[in-house]
């Protein structure tokens, strides 16, 4: 493996950006596009689309299963090592046998992606923000936005607000209420604790917490029942990746509306459109990929089973790709 660039690229191109090579893949950017080449092909994505997807793949540690940046390029997480692919989940590439995939250690690919994200993100552009809430990513190299691209991911051990665990968001912590949630009540539950039980009697306002998220499409853990994780997130515009499942995932729409475009995980053939409104609950089967559209900032509870046994159990046919057979 060669990693030919760092935060200050030694040989910036005409637009001022570094070029990154890892294995057979090379990434370069110009004023409008990311260009990806591999031994058998080449591909381009608009730089805003690419950076938004790259930001999620980095922040989520390659997430569960497949992160498709678009219908051609993406990563498959094997938890410790990662496949980076072109055309692997694209029916035409597969049939023409021009798809390409290469395996990397988690740490090597993460280091490459982090360097690229840092170098290619300009001052004033936040890939986590909704498009209306940030500047443009286009043009020549114009500084950086390290604070935005290296945010800490919230992972509660037990539950947000429990003493010693992740804490609630406040104005003072730099988390004002988002413009899209200005009408969301900011009250807190009444918690009356008997002496000695402070660590076990806890509650907080989850909707207030989500209303103060400064990012979009970034599930973070607020409560954990063993390996069952509540991962709420605030959503606006389009999910920047097409998430291919290696396990069943559930959505609880807490507010407003998201429409999900659901495709076959392997071929990309359309399977369904799922319209989720407040209070709706829907499963995403383990053999699909999905991308959400949220016209107004909305609250989504993503519910995950983090057990590392699941992908193998599904691959071996021991459990159904469906959440429930009824």
């Amino acid at each position: 493996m060669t990693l030919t660039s760092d935060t200050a690229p030694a040989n910036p191109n005409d637009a001022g950006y570094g070029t990154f090579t890892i294995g057979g893949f090379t990434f370069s950017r110009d004023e409008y596009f990311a260009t990806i080449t591999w031994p058998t092909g080449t591909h381009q994505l608009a730089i805003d689309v690419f950076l938004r997807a790259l930001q999620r793949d980095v922040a989520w540690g390659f997430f569960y299963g497949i992160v498709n940046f678009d219908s051609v390029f993406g990563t498959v997480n094997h938890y410790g090592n990662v496949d980076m692919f072109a055309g692997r989940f694209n029916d035409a590439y597969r049939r023409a046998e021009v798809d390409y995939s290469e395996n990397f250690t988690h740490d090597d690919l993460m280091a490459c992606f982090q360097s690229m994200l840092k170098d290619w993100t300009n001052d004033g552009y936040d890939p986590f923000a909704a498009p209306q809430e940030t500047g443009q990513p286009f043009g020549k190299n114009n500084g950086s936005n390290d604070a935005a691209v290296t945010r800490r991911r919230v992972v509660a051990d037990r539950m947000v607000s429990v003493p010693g665990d992740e804490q609630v968001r406040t104005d003072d912590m730099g988390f004002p209420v988002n413009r899209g949630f200005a009408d969301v009540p900011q009250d807190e539950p009444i918690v009356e604790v008997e002496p000695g039980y402070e660590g076990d009697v806890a509650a907080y306002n989850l909707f207030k917490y989500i209303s103060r998220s400064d990012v979009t499409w970034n599930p973070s853990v607020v409560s954990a029942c063993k390996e069952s994780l509540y991962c709420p997130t605030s959503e606006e515009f389009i999910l920047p990746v097409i998430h291919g499942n290696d396990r069943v995932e559930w959505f609880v729409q807490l507010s407003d509306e998201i429409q999900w475009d659901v495709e076959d995980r392997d071929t990309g053939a359309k399977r369904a459109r799922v319209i989720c409104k407040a209070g709706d609950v829907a499963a995403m089967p383990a053999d699909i990929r999905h991308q959400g559209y949220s016209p107004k900032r909305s609250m989504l509870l993503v519910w995950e089973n983090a057990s590392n046994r699941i992908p193998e159990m599904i691959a071996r046919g021991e459990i159904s790709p469906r959440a429930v057979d009824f």
Partner: protein
Amino acid sequence: MAGYTTVFGSLDNYEKGRVIIVDDDPKAYVFSNIFEVASMSKPYEKVAVGKNLEYVLETIRCEGTSEWRVTPHDEFALVMDGTVVVELLDPSGQLVDPDANGSIGLDGEPAGTRMGRITASRGHQALLPAGKCYRFHCDAVGVILLQTIEGPDTIYRWAEICQTEA
């Protein structure tokens, strides 16, 4: 510039979405609505609306006072509608195997020490701690979404609550 109106659901006012099929079986999406499920439930029935192997999400219609229950592991109650009071009690003995899954109902009020009380309204999430007892009370009608593990009182009625036709 006009502001935004955030739409939450409630028992009195919810609109259910749907699955629009291109080429699939709608049952694959196990699509239901928490408020619709609660509107069809008896008080304190634990109706699964989500299941991922042993883990479940239960919709609970809160109305009046529930029985006391004890949980072997942490559970989390998210109030989706109404105002619900959660009473917590530390039992004087071990009432449940800590390796068991799901909460179990108790006869009457268990002996032990009161730990405290949480009054939670829409959007509030409360910890129901492992090894401890709890009960719910709601003066009117409320709805809880419970993050837990399948237990003896989990109720499955998928065919009644989920979209089955395209």
